[in-house]
């Protein structure tokens, strides 16, 4: 039985050659599965992921794991087996040194004695044999040398011997020994040991590795497939969602796993993008509706008026008057059109600066702007504006929103009433801008509808205005991350008045 000191045949295989090929940069190319003559039916049955980058990744991953496992196992094998061998050699060397000592100090006599002593020691792993120049056995476990002693130096021999048992029977054991020719004498000494134990150990290691290697290979393939399948599935989800959205299902979103990993983050960003797309689509749809709804009537009116003017003979003065009215109507249409565009841009979120600005200042300026108009309308105007209330937003948009609120208040409050504008600290890091009037207010069930485009309370249909006022305020509130709150004022039940609050986050 030889102690194996080289790679066993099964290691010297294509794995090694593949490794070296890789190192040399000559890895054979990944088989192009599309070119393989796979019948259509089989190809269709192959799961989609086999044809993808994820499969190649899985294969690469598996290969790497397999290679590393292989290298690890090889190292393990080599170092344990090597250790066993080295250890045995060391012990034999020690033994020989001790015996050599005995020989040099006391000659053959002493050596024989030492050998006898060692033979009687129980638990010693070594077997001895000593003979004289004539080849006559002096002492030892064996009847004779298994081989001729060398002329010089040590000779290693492997042989089998019969080990007598306590019950009288004999067992055949493998052994390895070292024979040395004694100097000045011609005798020979052999120290041997039972290699059965070692062989058992080495065999055990070998078979363990033999089992572990293919298991590692299978597991690595499995692992590669599992991991990349997870990725493949996420990629597939993304693709499916995108397809659905393209097909028109704008409300579809990529499902999130809640793992917080890159795929979830990607899904989050894609969902945010889809939200934005949804907003834009809604904005443009609203614009379409708005144009249909609110521009058609005045344009139709215009057309009718002009048609009448064409058909009936008119005095020049009347004609001029008609044309003048027409121009005014067209101007109103243009105004409405601008307002619609404005709202569309607000909805799309593409308009609006975010700077630290003083809401109190804006409120004061607008209060001052509207005060005379209030008076003209026979309304009392009060303002209570806390100083230095800063918000993060767009002065123009907020100004327009406040202007709309005050304008509405003036429009709907009957003569003799009052309007109050206040700026106060709101709850939780917000600032409240409130416009309160003593008009009819807005009934609770109407409040959600009233901020929609073009809605106007039935009672107000006869009043001029494009009905976009409150919806602009809502859009501005949304854009700034705030809210529009509609509530009753402090008037009596039949004339409660409206308390409109624009609540914005503090800067």
């Amino acid at each position, binding site marked *: 039985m030889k102690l194996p000191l080289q790679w066993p045949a099964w290691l010297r295989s294509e794995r090694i050659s593949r490794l070296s090929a890789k190192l040399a940069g000559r890895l054979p190319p990944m088989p192009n599965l599309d070119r393989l003559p796979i019948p259509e039916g089989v190809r269709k049955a192959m799961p989609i992921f086999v044809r993808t980058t994820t499969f190649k990744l899985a294969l690469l991953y598996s290969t790497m794991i397999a290679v590393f496992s292989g290298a690890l196992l090889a190292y393990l094998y080599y170092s344990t087996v090597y250790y066993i061998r080295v250890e045995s050699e060391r012990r034999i060397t020690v033994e020989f040194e001790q015996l050599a000592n005995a020989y040099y100090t006391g000659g053959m006599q002493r050596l024989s004695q030492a050998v006898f002593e060692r033979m009687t020691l129980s638990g010693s792993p070594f077997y001895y044999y000593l003979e004289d120049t004539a080849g006559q056995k002096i002492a030892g476990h064996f009847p004779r040398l298994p081989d001729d002693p060398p002329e010089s130096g040590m000779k290693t021999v492997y042989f089998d011997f019969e080990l007598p048992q306590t019950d009288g029977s004999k067992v055949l054991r493998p052994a390895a020994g070292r024979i040395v020719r004694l100097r000045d004498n011609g005798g020979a000494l052999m120290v041997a040991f039972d290699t059965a134990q070692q062989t058992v150990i080495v065999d055990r290691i070998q078979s363990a590795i033999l089992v572990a290697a293919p298991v590692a290979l299978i597991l690595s393939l499995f692992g590669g497939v599992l991991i990349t399948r997870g990725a493949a599935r996420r990629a597939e989800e993304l693709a499916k969602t995108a397809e659905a959205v393209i097909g028109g299902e704008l409300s579809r979103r990529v499902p999130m796993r809640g793992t917080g990993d890159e795929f979830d983050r990607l899904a989050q960003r894609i969902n945010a993008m889809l939200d934005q797309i949804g907003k834009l689509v809604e904005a443009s749809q609203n614009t379409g509706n708005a144009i249909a709804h609110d521009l058609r009537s005045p344009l139709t009116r215009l057309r009718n008026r002009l048609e009448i003017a064409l058909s009936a003979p008119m005095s020049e003065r009347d004609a001029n008057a008609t044309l003048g009215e027409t121009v005014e109507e067209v101007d109103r249409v*243009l105004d409405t059109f601008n307002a619609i565009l404005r709202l569309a841009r607000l909805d799309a979120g593409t308009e609006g600066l975010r700077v630290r600005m003083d809401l109190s200042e804006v409120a004061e300026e607008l209060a001052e*702007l509207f005060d*005379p108009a209030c008076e*003209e309308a026979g309304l009392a105007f009060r303002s209570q504006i806390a100083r230095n209330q800063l918000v993060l937003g767009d002065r*123009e948009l907020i100004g327009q929103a406040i202007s709309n609120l005050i304008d509405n208040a003036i429009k709907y409050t009957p003569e003799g009433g009052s309007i109050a504008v206040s700026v106060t600290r709101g709850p939780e890091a917000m600032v409240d801008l409130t416009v309160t009037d003593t008009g009819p207010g807005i009934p609770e069930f109407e409040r959600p509808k009233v901020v929609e485009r073009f809605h106007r309370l039935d009672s107000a249909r006869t009043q001029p205005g494009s009905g976009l006022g409150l919806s602009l305020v809502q859009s501005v509130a949304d854009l700034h991350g705030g809210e529009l709150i509609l509530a009753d004022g402090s008037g009596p039940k039949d004339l409660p008045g409206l308390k409109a609050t624009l609540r914005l986050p503090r800067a």
Partner: protein
Amino acid sequence: MADTLHHRCLKVLVIEDDTEMANFIEKVLEDAGHDVECAHDGTAGLARARASEFDALVVDRMLPEKDGLTLIREFRDAGGTTPALFLSALGDVQNKVQGLKAGAEDYLGKPFVPAELAARVEALGRRQAGEPQVTTLKAGDLEMNLLTRKVTRGGKRIDLQPREFRLLEYLMRHAGQVVTRTMLLEKVWDYNFDPQTNVIDVHVSRLRAKIDKDFPEPLLQTVRGAGYRLQG
């Protein structure tokens, strides 16, 4: 077109690639009594602007060859001082700021009210470089001393609130020209939205009460369909 009598006939260059729009603008301005020339792309426009002395430029933002922003920038870099007004379908505040930064003096979004355009072009025409720093504004027998903040008409002292003073100052600086409500909201109150109701009207009528009521000749006139004009 509403009546827009005024002193000055301005030489205006309109740079607009949409021929129908260009013709329309030309007509609006010619009706207002100005001389109008047209160019239809950025390169030609820049060349014309540099070749002749115009009183005002009306520039569309989206032009072939060279866009409006670049045109104005290059014009200013070359030393051109003609005041310019941008016309653009991109009417939001960010684009407006961009346009003003490029070197234009005013910015009007499309669609626009023709009277607004005419009024703003005339306001531009006033803004020639080299206008000396005045300390007193005059319109008829109305006098405003910018240093002492005193306003008198026919020698009689008129007391004005700060806002009324600013309003009158703007009207006087543009005496003889039509000034729209949008322009007033913009220049006197510094807000860019369209004023609703008659919010500006009331301020103007209060001012009118102070400067016109006790005097023989009304200086502050309402121009129907456009805005106001202070007789110059």
